[in-house]
């Protein structure tokens, strides 16, 4: 194990990417992810890598498309309005089956919104985002250490399944400083025989997302769907916290919101409530397996920094078995420990099946 270093979340994304063998970053300035490009602008030259500030988010994601197609680990990062601009390129990357890491350090929308933290891009991240039938692999960290772990995992899963992966975090975690341990992780070597980087000694390759014959295009879609089914089966990840056989109230929250909810749950349980937490780590695939064995749960309580987006996935997986309650704040406002605690206590007092 290496020694711990104190780092900001945004900077940790950059260092984790370098440790994962990424030497190609293409981005465009936007708050609250600004420390990440600044960090990599300094670090990439030190490790012989490429840092390039594009003329737009469109250019940056298409530079990632080109770099990834040529066989290298490549990434971009942005915050919500910028990620909207990247959607065209992301859809093309899924269609062309190209790996990459895309980071969204979320801020509040819609529109220009504000630079304070939010989780309101959950729909965009997990339900496709651009045109066509597709999903990104979406991982949501809740600590700076987990940022490091999940950045590496995003690269690995993305290379394995040939699909872009998104690290979905928010302005609060991006700005937060915590000690992290980079350990002794070594990225594995991945063969990319499909890459376009000169056809010496092989047949020429081509990369595209167009299949003009509809039957061929349908075959391509079926292939992608098969891959998404495989990812759904193999890559569900979540954390269970204070969750045991007699838990009655199940809180579901991800990322920053889960950290805050933990404090509320600890306080509620201290005064006799039976509250536990499921924290989805993979937002897509949504960890439906986490909800299979919760027989004594009487109430589910979803907390988000949004109007209720992950809420819909929880409602689908609970499927009417017990009531699903929600509390959220928007616009860059963050639910407090006290607010969540108050809601939990209200729920604990209310009759079952209400």
């Amino acid at each position, binding site marked *: 194990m290496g020694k711990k270093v104190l780092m900001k979340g945004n900077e940790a994304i950059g260092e984790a990417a370098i440790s994962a063998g990424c030497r190609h970053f293409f981005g465009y300035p936007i708050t609250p992810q600004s420390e990440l490009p600044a960090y990599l602008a300094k670090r990439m030259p030190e490790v012989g890598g490429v840092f390039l500030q594009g003329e737009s988010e469109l250019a940056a994601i298409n530079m990632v498309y080109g770099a990834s197609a040529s066989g290298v680990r490549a990434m971009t990062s942005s915050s919500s309005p910028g990620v909207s601009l990247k959607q065209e*390129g992301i859809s093309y990357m899924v269609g062309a089956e190209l790996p990459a890491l895309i980071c969204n350090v979320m801020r509040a929308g819609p529109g220009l919104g504000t630079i304070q933290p939010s989780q309101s891009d959950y729909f965009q991240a997990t339900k496709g985002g651009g045109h066509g039938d597709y999903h990104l692999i979406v991982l949501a960290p809740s600590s700076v250490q987990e940022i490091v772990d999940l950045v590496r995992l995003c690269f690995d899963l993305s290379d394995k399944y040939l699909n872009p992966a998104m690290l979905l975090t928010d302005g609060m975690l991006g700005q937060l400083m915590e000690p992290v341990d980079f350990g002794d992780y070594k990225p594995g070597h991945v063969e990319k025989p499909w890459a376009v980087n000169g056809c010496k000694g092989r047949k020429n390759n081509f990369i595209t997302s167009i299949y003009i014959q509809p039957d061929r295009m349908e075959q391509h879609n079926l292939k992608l769907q098969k891959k998404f089914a495989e990812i759904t089966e193999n890559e569900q990840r979540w954390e269970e916290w204070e969750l045991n056989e007699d838990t009655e109230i199940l809180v579901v929250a991800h990322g920053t919101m889960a950290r805050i909810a933990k404090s509320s749950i600890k306080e509620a349980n201290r005064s006799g409530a039976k509250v536990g937490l499921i924290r989805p780590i993979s937002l897509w695939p949504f960890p439906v397996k986490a909800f299979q064995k919760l027989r004594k749960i009487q109430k589910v309580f979803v907390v988000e920094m949004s109007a209720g987006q992950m809420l819909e996935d929880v409602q689908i997986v609970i499927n009417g078995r017990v009531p699903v309650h929600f509390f959220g704040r928007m616009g860059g406002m963050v639910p407090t420990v006290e607010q969540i605690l108050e809601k939990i206590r209200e729920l604990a007092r209310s009759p079952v099946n209400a």
Partner: protein
Amino acid sequence: MKKVFEKPKSLGDKHFSYCPGCTHGIIHRLIAETLDELDVRERTVGVSPVGCSVFAYEFFNFDMIGAAHGRAPAVATGIKRSHPECIVFTYQGDGDLAAIGTAEIVHAATRGEKITVIFVNNAIYGMTGGQMAPTTLLNQKTDTTPYGRSAEANGYPIRVCELLSTLEGTYFAQRVSVHNPANVVKAKQAIRKAFTNQVEGKDFNIVEILSTCPSCWGISPLKALDWLSENMIPYYPLGVYKDKDAKKEEVAAAS
């Protein structure tokens, strides 16, 4: 018997799917001949656009990638920055390069990306059936300018070589045409220069090639060649707009 003429290695076996009289086929061949002559086929990556040449990757015999509409220079940047040893070029039409991809081409040029851009200007959107392009001439009729392009309603056609030649990162910019054999020879020389410059590690290179679209212009292939010569060349004069080598020579001669 001695073989004196053959298909370039850089072209594949697939028949071109372009319309009769379209000059994309000539331009493809000129690129393929050039890459063969420079012996760089095996380290070339071509970027095809959205437009009639979206399937260019089917015709070339080297690595190719299709880009989103207008984004080819950004895609080429990503490839070249990851693999500086590769010879990277984009093949773009007028809608792709001079409308939706204006930001990408201007910034690739101003960054001095060491890529080659083949810009095919036929003053119309061919693949979508003949709409106004950024290079459609004033009074030219298209599906979306049925009464002719008017400066008041649609503004003026863009002269790309002139525009890009103002940028410091542009090393070489030349406009050529392929409407007759003499000009095809000149076009080949320009393409060769634009690729040789890249092999030598020089900055951004662009060759603009005036091209015909008999299908969407609604005239015969032969008349299309005349139309190009009589209408396009006066507005889009042929010639070298930027050549940093020439400037160096001038400086050397003056000193």
